[in-house]
């Protein structure tokens, strides 16, 4: 029998392999020849032929897939058709914007959602619970990019507290760079926090109805003690699941939000690449995002075992 962790890891690897096949196949069916695209309209047949040879475009499909896959594993994602620089370098530059944005948003959303969810659950049915969940209900319905536009109007255009967009680059100083990520991360975090707060509340309420909670109360523990020591820990599994899923939404959200704030992140890169038909860049970014997603979900699966010891021995 495989252990729980090994099985999860194997599934993650298989998923990634299958995903790489899908991505490779998708972009393989695109009409047009990358070599011709790189050299432009006026290239001679010989030049095109040479470049095709050099890029390995004449090799059989399977060989090209495996050499692409091998490249992925060693960080060689090929060369951009339009910029003629390694895709890896392009991505590395942009990740320095997108990743901090996603991580700050995730932290912000968790820091807001958990206390609100716990508070609402502990005040179940009271006015403050109804109010908090009403606000959350509206928050769930707000598209983050629209919220971002409203924030820009209020804090950048009207109050002039923060820049409306753009990114100075980490080299220009940590403070100014962080400042230009404030509005984007708030815009990303709040709608996510609304979802997470609702989940936290309902998971807690479910647990609070269990027999062992009544037992804990009956043996004389205070409501507070029961809530934090017994209920919260048991309510964490659904919360963790949602956190994992939210990371996926945050990554996707980052790509969209970058367009509101003109941030030079992965989102801008991928949309530029689409308009310039620079498919190898699209391929690289999509694979990177999928790998991140699969990895995060694997970590979530593994963290179940830490939160819930019953899962450790199981396959």
């Amino acid at each position, binding site marked *: 029998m495989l252990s729980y962790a090994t099985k999860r890891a194997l599934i993650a690897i298989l*998923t990634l392999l299958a995903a790489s096949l899908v991505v490779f196949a998708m972009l393989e069916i695109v009409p047009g020849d990358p070599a011709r695209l790189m050299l432009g309209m006026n290239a001679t047949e010989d030049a095109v032929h040479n470049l095709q040879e050099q890029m390995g475009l004449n090799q059989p499909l399977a060989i090209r897939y495996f050499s692409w896959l091998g490249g992925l594993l060693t960080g060689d994602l090929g060369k951009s058709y339009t910029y003629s620089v390694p895709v890896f370098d392009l991505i590395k530059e942009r990740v320095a914007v997108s990743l901090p944005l996603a991580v700050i948003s995730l932290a912000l959303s968790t820091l807001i959602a958990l206390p609100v969810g716990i508070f609402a659950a502990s005040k179940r049915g009271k006015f403050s619970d109804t109010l908090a969940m009403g606000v959350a209900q509206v928050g*769930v319905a707000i*598209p983050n990019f629209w919220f971002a536009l*409203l924030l820009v109007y209020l804090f950048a255009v009207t109050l002039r507290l923060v820049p409306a967009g753009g990114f100075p680059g980490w080299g220009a100083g940590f403070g100014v760079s962080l400042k230009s990520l404030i509005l984007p991360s708030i815009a990303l975090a709040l709608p996510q926090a609304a979802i997470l707060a609702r989940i936290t509340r309902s998971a807690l309420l479910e647990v609070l109805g269990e027999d062992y909670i009544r037992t804990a109360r009956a043996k004389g523990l205070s409501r507070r003690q029961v809530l934090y020591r017994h209920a919260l820990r048991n309510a964490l599994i659904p919360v963790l699941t949602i956190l994992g899923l939210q990371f996926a939404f945050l990554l996707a959200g980052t790509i969209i939000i970058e367009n509101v704030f003109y941030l030079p992140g992965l989102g801008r890169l991928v*949309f530029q690449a689409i308009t310039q038909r620079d*498919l190898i860049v*699209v391929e690289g970014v999509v694979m990177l*995002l999928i790998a991140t*997603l699969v990895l995060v*979900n694997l970590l979530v699966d593994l963290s179940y075992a830490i939160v819930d010891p019953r899962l450790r021995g199981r396959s």
Partner: protein
Amino acid sequence: MSIGKVLANRSFCVGLIVTSLIALVALLSFVWTPYPVGAFDIAGKLKPPSAAHWLGTDHFGRDILSMIMVGSRNSIAVASVSVAIGAGIGVPLGLWGAATGGFVDEVLMRFNDLVFAFPALLSAVMITAVFGPGAINAIIAIGIFNIPVFARVARAAALSLWSREFVIAAGAIGKSPARITRDHILPNLASLLIVQATIQFSLGILAEAGLSYVGLGSQPPMPSWGRMLFEAQTMIGLAPHMALFPGLAIVITVLGLNLLGDGLRDVLDPRFQ
């Protein structure tokens, strides 16, 4: 389930009213809009809300209310077709997995994991990179995203039904798994699937807006809420109303659908009856 009980559920009532109103506005837009949609009036551009233009005009002088009305058709069409794709493929897969179990079930669930690794935005990015932008891409991308959601819900619920006595009894009198699924499992899942469809529908509206905002969804001249917001972005200092109203349309629609979904869950869930 009595009518009185249903009407006593506030989420359900508010959600139903809001959703019906949106649907009515979408239908109305086929026969009447305050102004012909897309009619330019450069002299009257960027006007704030007034008696002539209730929600103001955009940078081409187009009437924003008319565009929001026609845009609702786009949102509803994309969301409903992608729910149909997700449910049409996902539910049979989930039911099949639950009915067969073993290897088939394992393969179907791994397929689910794979599809789950492609959020709607990534699928849309790839489809657009290959075929160019368009509303169909948004439908396919959101539809693909919906497949594993429906498959999981259908499978989990079907699995718990398969151990119930009336299903075991149906097996004992010689009904095939396919017939049991059709006669006993599916009818008992219907309410759960309706609730899920409502939730996915509202997510679909949000996703469509996001995709058309970044240019991966429906293309001009078809008005769409997401692209109206994209066009509003550069005008935000001059004409904030351009950004305000299409966004409110999205929020109200999604909120209505979510309330309807919450209400339906309470009304249809046997535990609450």
